[in-house]
């Protein structure tokens, strides 16, 4: 029998990564800039110890509040003579680590709950929905502030707390996709082949859900950075002697008139980083799943 062969290539080109690879060749300038910036930030975070010219608490008392460009402090110093560039580098690492850790915790937690709700329906599903409602009822900032107030601001608490940000989005997506897969779709058919539920979820549903989840992660990541910066700015997040981007802005506030660069440098980094992630995330979303908005 002759079957018209309308497909163009036999190359398997439907994994998430190969689609991204193909898309890379048609990158608009702003997105390209965003990717470069993000890559830069990640490198800074990884190699912070190596590239940092000074320790973050090293005080150069002879050059306090030095202007940027005053050798050897490229970005100037703060009121205690601490090198702004070094503190900035360390802050980038701190904020990125927290945001990464929190995003992953949030994604895993949310996806698992979403799958559980889809698989077991009934009471479990209602429980998950109630939890999601609860999360939506309390503005995250307020809840974080309250918890930090009661339990004190330790680093691990901070990361776990940030990890609760946005889980309900992943849960909703995972649940929706799992349900539609089960109802009439490939999941039902694999079950019918005799697969165990584990196999159905891990080998079939999860990979199909992955691209949507990744897009969601690019949306929550910048929000977590903003959230943590806000908390640190208020003095409730990362505590000294550790430094984070929000922290630096908070300290720089006092010297807004005399030494605005203390506050401007971290602010600029926050803005460019969140901007980059938003741009790249939007673009990724269009490429991976145009039906999403």
């Amino acid at each position: 029998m002759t079957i018209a062969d309308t497909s163009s290539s036999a190359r398997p080109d439907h994994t998430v990564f190969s689609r991204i690879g193909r898309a890379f060749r048609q990158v608009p300038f702003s997105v390209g800039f965003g990717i470069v910036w993000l890559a830069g930030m990640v490198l800074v975070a990884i190699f912070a110890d190596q590239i940092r010219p000074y320790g973050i608490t090293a005080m150069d008392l002879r050059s306090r509040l030095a202007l940027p460009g005053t050798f050897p402090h490229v970005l100037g110093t703060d009121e205690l003579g601490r090198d702004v560039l070094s503190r900035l580098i360390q802050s980038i690492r701190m904020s990125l680590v927290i945001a990464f850790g929190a995003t992953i915790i949030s994604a895993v937690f949310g996806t698992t709950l979403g799958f559980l709700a889809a698989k077991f329906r009934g009471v479990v599903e209602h429980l998950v929905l109630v939890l999601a409602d609860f999360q939506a009822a309390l503005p995250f900032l307020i809840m974080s502030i309250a918890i930090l107030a009661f339990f004190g601001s330790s680093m691990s608490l901070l990361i776990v707390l940030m990890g609760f940000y946005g889980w309900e989005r992943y849960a909703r997506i995972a649940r929706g996709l799992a349900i539609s897969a089960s109802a009439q779709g490939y999941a039902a058919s694999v079950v019918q082949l005799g697969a165990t539920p584990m196999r159905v979820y891990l080998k079939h549903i999860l990979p199909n859900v992955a691209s949507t989840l990744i897009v969601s992660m690019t949306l929550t990541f910048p929000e977590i950075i903003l959230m943590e910066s806000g908390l640190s700015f208020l003095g409730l997040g990362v505590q000294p002697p550790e430094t984070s981007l929000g922290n630096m802005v908070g300290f720089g506030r006092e010297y807004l008139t005399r030494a605005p660069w203390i506050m401007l440098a971290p602010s600029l980094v926050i803005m460019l980083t969140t901007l980059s992630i938003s741009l790249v995330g939007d673009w990724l979303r269009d490429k991976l799943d145009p039906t999403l908005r």
Partner: protein
Amino acid sequence: MMVRFILTRLFRAFITILAVITFAFVVLRMSGDPAQVMLGPDAPNETVLAFRATWGLDQPIWVQYAAYIKSIFSGDFGVSMRDKASAIHLVIERIPATLQLTIPALLLKLAIGIPAGVYAALHRQSIIDRGVIFGAVLGFTIPSFVMGLLLVLLFSIILGVLPSGGQDTWQHGILPTLTMAIGGIGILARFSRSAMIEVMGQPFIRTASAKGLKWKDVVWSHALPNAAVPIVTIVGFMVGSLIAGAVVVESIFSWPGIGRLLVVSVTNRDLAVVQCILLVVAATMVVSNLVVDLLYGWLDPRLRSQSAH
């Protein structure tokens, strides 16, 4: 059928509030001795003992839980350590100050954000569209504290035309309101734009204009009502944050509202007030979510016939 819808929503709202109260209870108990927490470390011994008795702190946990709920519903949130005034009173008297910022900010967001987004959607690829997208992106990537400080830098320090802190005259409210509004305008513009674009791409819009309707009518009677649904959700969140959304801004501008009270209380470990704010804010959000849900049911008839979820 509407009745069932309303009842389910009310029930869910009630459960959520109960969950928040339980959460507050758990946090309170886990973080240390509630008596110390609520009364402060310098409270005289008799007060502590009396407190423990009223709250039944020696009783099994279920009794404590019930006592806690009872006290919440009777308005007793404990006493602020700083002023020795009732926590709930302290909180309530700060609400108007916060609203003075958030309500004008919300109006600005609605008045500028939604039209900008809708206009951009209807004139894709024009200068205005690009401008709106650019502005919107800037608006929500710049964190509010940065925005606030930048505005202070520009208007108070460099230009010297607006005051930078306190609540003395109405001019003092301009910068904080502006700071809050800008981020929200960005979010609303972006959202309205994508909601409109989605609706305009639907087949029924083509049908409407093919029927010969004037473009104006197509937009106003067909596109906008449908686009309204997702926009209402976002607006709902913003309304719910009327009380809670000003935390950072109030800190920057030393505006004596609830947000500032929260931060100050946390720094002073005045936990009775913290707990009170938590519950008041949650109640506001739940109520506003409920109103949005009900509004949904009225706006979108399809949702009415479904039961809860």
